[in-house]
C-alpha cells in the first residue's frame, strides 16, 4: 500500500574496476544514481570529478543521427536485455561516423533529385494552369497569343539539337510537343510563358530553330495538350516516388548495421551516464544511489563479484539519509504494483508522484475508478464494443511501443469490461432491458416501471447509492491522510486539518446530523448535546491549530537557542485578528468543502440516469423514423448511430468524470504529489 522502501548505497571501488562495475550496474539496472556529495556534503571538496571522455559528445550525436535516419522510415531500436556487456567495447567511432555520413549524403542526393523533379512538376503545373485558365484552343493560336500569358511557337529544329533544346528549356515552364519528323528535322510546337519570351527565343535561336506558320493540316489536329501535360506530371511523380522509395531503401539496406552501431553507441552512452555520477580519489571511485530495499542483496553481491571483494559498501536507510540532510534530499519513489494495474498507475502518476513512504493509491484507484465507470455506464453490448476497441488498440500500439497509449487502450479495455459487468447487474444490452438484472432494473426505475428490487425503488435510491459510495471514498481518503501523517509524525496536521481527525469528526458528525434530519422529515435537528459533540466541539478545537503550532515552534526554538538571537513571541491584536480570520476560513473550508465533495458524487447517479434516458430517446427516435411499430432500415441506422454516439461521447465523458472524482474528491484528501520517480539506469532506458 505504501511506496516501496528504499535504501541508499555508497560504494567505493578501485579505479581499475570502474568500467566493469559500470557495466554490471547497467546490466542489473536497479540503481537510481545520485551524486554522492548531495548527501555527504562535506565530501564535496575532497572528491574530484571523473574526466569526461572526449568521445562522449560524438557518441551522442552519432546515436541521434542514426535514430533520425531510422525514425524517418518508421523504425525505432530498443536495447535488448541479453546484450553481452562483459566483452562490450566501443570501437572505431571515426569509421562509424564516416559510414553514417555517407548514408546521409546518399539520402540527401536522393532528396535533391526529388526536389529538381518537383520543380519540373510545378513548372508544368504553371503552364497547365495558364492553359486551362484561358481555355486554349490550338486552332485559334492568335487569340491565345493576344489574351493570355502563354505564347506558342511552331517550327523546325535539327534532330541532333532536340535533346539539348529540351534540356536548356528546363529552367522555364514550357511544353514541347514534337509533331512530325522529316529528314533530319523535327517539327514541334512549343508552349511557354510570355514572361520568358526573350530568354526562350535566345535558346531557340542557339538550337537552330526555324519558326514557321502553323500548317493548315495541323490546325484541326487533336493535340490533347492538357492530357499531354498530365501524363508528363504523372511520369515525373512516378519518378519522384521511386526516388523517395530508394531513399528509404538506402536506410533499409543498412538497417542491421545501423542497429548494431546504435546498440554500441547507446550502451556507451549509458555507461558514460553511470560514470558521470562517479567521484574519484587518487586510486578509487565512489558512487551512490537508491535501490529498492528488496534488491540490496543482489546489487551488493554483484559489486562484490565484479571487484572480487575489493570494495567498500555502506548502506543507509531513507530515514538516516533524511536525518543527515534534514529532508533536503528527496528519496525516489518506486511504485510497486502488478503489471495489470499499469493503466491505473498511469492515472496516479499523471496527477503526481506520491512522496516517499506515503500511500500509493493505485490499487484503490483500480476499484474506485471502475466502480464509478460501471455505475455511470452500464451496458453489456456497448461495454463489449469498448472492451474490444481497447484490446485491439493495445495490441496495435504494442508494436509501436508507445507505453502511455498502450496503457490508455488497456484502460479502455478495463472500462469496457466493467461496463459489461454492470450491464448484467442492471440488465441493459445496447440500451434495451434484454437480460434479467442481477441487481436492479435501471431502465425500469428511470421509466417508472419498477426495478425488480425491493430496496431500490426510485431515482432517489440511485442517488443515495452514489452518495454512500462517495462518502466511502472520502472516508478512505481521510484514512490514507492519517496514515501518511502518522508515518511522517506530523501530529499537528493529523489532528487539526480538514482531512485530519477534527475534520473527519466534523464530516462524520455532519453525516449523522443529515441522516437524523432525513429520518425526521427535515423538520428536526438532533438534540443540543449531540450537536455540541458532533459539530461544535470539533469546530472550536480546529481553531487551535495556529496557537498549538506556535507553542510547538517555541519549544523547538528554545531547544535550538534561537531565542537568544532576540526573537520573541508577542500576542498582538493583529495576531489575534489573524487567528480569528484563519479559524473562520478554515471552518468555512471544512463545512462547505465536505458538503460539495459529497454532493459531487451525485453526478455518478446523474450520468447513469442520463445514459438510460439517452438510449430510450434514441429508440423512440428510431421508432418515429420507422413510422410505427418495428424498425425499418432508417430506424436501424438511428439505433446504430445512437449507440455509437453514446459509446463515444458518453464513454468519454464518463471516463473523464471518474477521473475527476478520483483527482478532486479522493486524492486531495491525502495525496502529496511532490515525490520524484525512481529511475534506475538500465538497458531499456
Amino acid at each position, binding site marked *: 500500500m505504501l511506496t516501496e522502501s528504499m535504501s541508499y548505497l555508497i560504494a567505493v571501488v578501485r579505479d581499475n574496476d570502474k568500467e566493469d562495475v559500470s557495466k554490471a550496474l547497467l546490466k542489473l539496472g536497479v540503481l537510481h544514481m545520485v551524486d554522492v556529495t548531495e548527501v555527504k556534503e562535506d565530501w564535496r571538496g575532497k572528491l574530484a570529478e571523473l574526466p569526461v571522455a572526449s568521445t562522449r559528445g560524438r557518441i551522442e550525436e552519432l546515436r*541521434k543521427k542514426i535514430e533520425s*535516419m531510422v525514425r524517418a522510415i518508421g523504425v525505432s531500436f530498443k536495447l535488448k536485455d541479453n546484450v553481452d556487456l562483459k566483452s562490450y567495447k566501443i570501437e572505431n567511432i571515426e569509421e562509424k561516423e564516416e559510414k553514417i555520413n555517407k548514408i546521409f549524403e546518399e539520402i540527401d542526393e536522393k532528396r535533391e533529385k526529388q526536389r529538381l523533379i518537383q*520543380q519540373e512538376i510545378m*513548372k508544368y503545373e504553371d503552364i497547365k494552369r*495558364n492553359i486551362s485558365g484561358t481555355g486554349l484552343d490550338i486552332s485559334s493560336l492568335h487569340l491565345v497569343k493576344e489574351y493570355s*500569358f502563354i505564347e506558342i511557337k511552331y517550327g523546325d529544329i535539327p534532330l541532333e539539337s532536340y535533346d539539348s533544346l529540351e534540356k536548356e528549356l528546363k529552367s*522555364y515552364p514550357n511544353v514541347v510537343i514534337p509533331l512530325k519528323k522529316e529528314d533530319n528535322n523535327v517539327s514541334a510546337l512549343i508552349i511557354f510563358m510570355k514572361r520568358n519570351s526573350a530568354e526562350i527565343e535566345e535558346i531557340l535561336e542557339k538550337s537552330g530553330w526555324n519558326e514557321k506558320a502553323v500548317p493548315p493540316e495541323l490546325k484541326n489536329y487533336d493535340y490533347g495538350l492538357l492530357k499531354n501535360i498530365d501524363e508528363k506530371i504523372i511520369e515525373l511523380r512516378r519518378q519522384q516516388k521511386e526516388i*523517395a522509395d530508394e531513399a528509404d531503401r538506402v536506410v533499409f539496406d543498412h538497417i542491421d548495421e545501423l542497429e548494431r552501431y546504435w546498440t554500441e553507441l547507446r550502451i556507451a552512452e549509458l555507461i558514460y551516464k553511470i560514470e558521470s555520477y562517479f567521484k574519484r580519489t587518487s586510486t578509487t571511485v565512489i558512487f551512490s544511489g537508491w535501490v529498492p530495499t528488496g534488491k540490496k542483496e543482489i546489487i551488493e553481491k554483484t559489486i562484490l563479484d565484479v571487484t572480487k571483494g575489493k570494495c567498500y559498501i555502506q548502506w543507509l536507510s531513507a530515514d538516516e539519509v533524511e536525518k543527515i540532510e534534514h529532508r533536503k534530499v528527496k528519496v525516489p519513489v518506486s511504485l510497486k504494483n502488478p503489471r495489470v494495474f499499469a493503466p491505473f498507475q498511469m492515472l496516479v502518476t499523471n496527477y503526481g508522484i506520491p512522496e516517499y513512504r506515503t500511500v500509493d493509491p493505485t490499487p484503490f484507484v483500480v476499484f474506485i475508478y471502475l466502480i464509478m465507470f460501471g455505475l455511470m455506464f452500464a451496458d453489456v453490448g456497448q461495454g463489449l464494443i469498448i472492451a474490444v476497441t481497447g484490446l485491439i488498440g493495445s495490441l496495435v500500439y504494442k508494436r509501436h511501443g508507445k507505453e502511455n497509449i498502450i496503457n490508455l487502450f488497456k484502460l479502455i479495455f478495463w472500462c469496457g469490461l466493467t461496463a459489461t459487468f454492470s450491464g448484467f447487474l442492471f440488465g441493459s444490452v445496447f440500451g434495451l432491458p434484454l437480460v434479467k438484472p442481477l441487481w436492479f432494473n435501471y431502465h425500469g426505475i428511470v421509466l417508472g416501471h419498477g426495478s425488480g428490487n425491493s430496496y431500490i425503488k426510485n431515482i432517489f435510491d440511485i442517488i443515495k447509492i452514489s452518495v454512500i459510495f462517495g462518502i466511502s471514498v472520502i472516508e478512505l481518503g481521510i484514512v490514507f491522510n492519517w496514515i501518511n501523517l502518522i508515518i511522517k509524525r506530523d501530529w499537528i496536521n493529523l489532528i487539526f486539518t480538514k482531512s485530519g481527525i477534527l475534520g473527519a469528526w466534523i464530516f462524520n458528525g455532519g453525516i449523522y446530523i443529515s441522516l437524523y434530519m432525513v429520518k425526521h422529515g427535515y423538520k428536526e435537528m438532533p438534540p443540543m448535546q449531540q450537536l455540541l459533540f458532533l459539530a461544535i466541539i470539533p469546530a472550536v478545537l480546529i481553531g487551535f491549530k495556529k496557537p498549538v503550532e506556535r507553542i510547538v515552534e517555541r519549544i523547538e526554538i528554545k531547544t535550538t537557542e534561537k531565542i537568544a538571537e532576540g526573537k520573541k513571541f508577542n500576542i498582538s491584536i493583529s495576531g489575534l485578528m489573524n487567528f480569528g480570520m484563519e479559524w473562520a476560513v478554515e471552518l468555512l473550508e471544512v463545512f462547505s468543502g465536505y458538503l460539495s465533495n459529497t454532493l459531487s458524487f451525485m453526478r455518478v447517479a446523474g450520468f447513469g440516469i442520463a445514459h438510460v434516458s439517452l438510449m430510450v430517446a434514441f429508440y423512440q427516435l428510431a421508432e418515429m423514423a420507422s413510422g410505427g411499430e418495428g424498425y425499418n432500415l432508417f430506424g436501424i441506422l438511428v439505433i446504430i448511430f445512437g449507440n455509437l454516439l453514446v459509446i463515444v461521447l458518453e464513454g468519454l465523458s464518463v471516463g473523464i468524470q471518474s477521473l475527476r472524482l478520483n483527482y478532486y474528491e479522493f486524492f486531495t484528501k491525502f495525496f502529496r504529489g511532490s515525490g520524484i520517480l525512481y529511475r534506475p539506469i538500465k538497458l531499456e532506458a
Partner: protein
Amino acid sequence: MPKSAISTYGFINARLRARLGLLLTEEKYNQLISAPTLEEMLSYLRDTPYEILERVYRDTGDIKLAELELFKKEIAIFGDILKSVTDKAHEIVKSLMMKYEVENLKNLLRIFFSRTVKNQNVENLILYIYRERIVHDIDVDSIVNADSLATVLDALKKTPYQKTVEEEWPVVQEKGTVFFLEVKLDHLYYKNLLNMSGILNQRDRYIFNRLIGVEIDIQNIDLITRLFGVYGVKEKFLREILIPGGHRINISKMGSISSSEDISEILKGTLPGSMIDVKDFDFSDKRDIIRGLELIEAMLEEMMLKEAKKALAGYPFSIGVILGYYVIKTRELRKLRAIMNAKVYGISPDALKRSL
C-alpha cells in the same frame, strides 16, 4: 438588433479553447530543436497538426514546398476562424488575415520588381507563390506575368493596396528597392487594423489596442534593427517608415534617430529601466546596439505572449480569445518556420535555442 457578446464569441471561444490544447508543447519544441537533421525534425511532427510537412518533404524533397504548405495551413486556420465568427469579430479576423495578404503581395511585388526592373530569373520563386484568395481578389498570375506597372495596378483594382503601390512605385524605382513599398503596405495593414478598433466595445477595444500596439512596437524595433544593420542609421526616412500606434515605444523619439548615439538614447529612454540595464552596453559598438535592439524585441515578444495569455484567461466572451489565440498561434508557426530553416542551414541546436 446588435448581437450579444455571448452569441458573437460563444462558439468561437469554445473552439479556440479546444484548439489551444493542440499547441506544440515545450517538450515537443525541445525535440524539434535538438533534432540533428531536418528529416528527424520533421518526423517529430508526426501526430501533431503539422504532420503534413513531413509528408510533403519526404514526397518531394522540397523544403520550400513544405514552407508553402505551412503558409497555406496558417491561412486555413484563420480562414476557418473567419467562417466561425460573425458581426464585429468577423471584421476583426478579416483585418487580421490581411497580414497574410500583405505578406503574399510583398512577395509578388518582389518578383515583379526583380523580373522587370532587375531582369533576374525568378522562375524558381514563382513556383512557390500562394495563389488562393485570402481576403481580396488579387489576380496573382497577372502580377507575376506583368510587363508594366499598369497591369499590376489593374490586378489590384479590387483591393485597398492599389493606391499605395501606385504612389510608392516611383520611390521603388528611385531607390532600386521594394523595401519602402513593403513598409508602406505594413502601414496600410496596421492603419486598417487600428481603425477596426472603432467597431469594438470599450473592453474589447482596450484588449485590442494593447495587443496590436505591442505588435506594432515589435515591428518598429525590427525595422530599426534591419535598417541599422543594412543601411546604417543616417537615413532621413526613418521617421517615415516607423508604424504609428505602438503601445510601449515612443515613436516620436524613435523617429528622430539620426545616429548611433541617438539609438543609445532610445535604448536608455524608451523602455523602463527595470527592463534593460543600459550599463551592460557599449554604445559605440554597433553590435552592442543591435544586441540591445534584439533584447528589446525579445522582451516585447515576451510581453506580447503575456498579454495574449492574459486575454485568454480573461472574460471569455470578448475579442481577447481570438486575439490571444492569434498571437500564440502565429508565434508557434513562426517558431516552427525558424526551426525548419535552422535545420536546413545546419544551425546548431544551442544557437537555435538562443535565437528563439
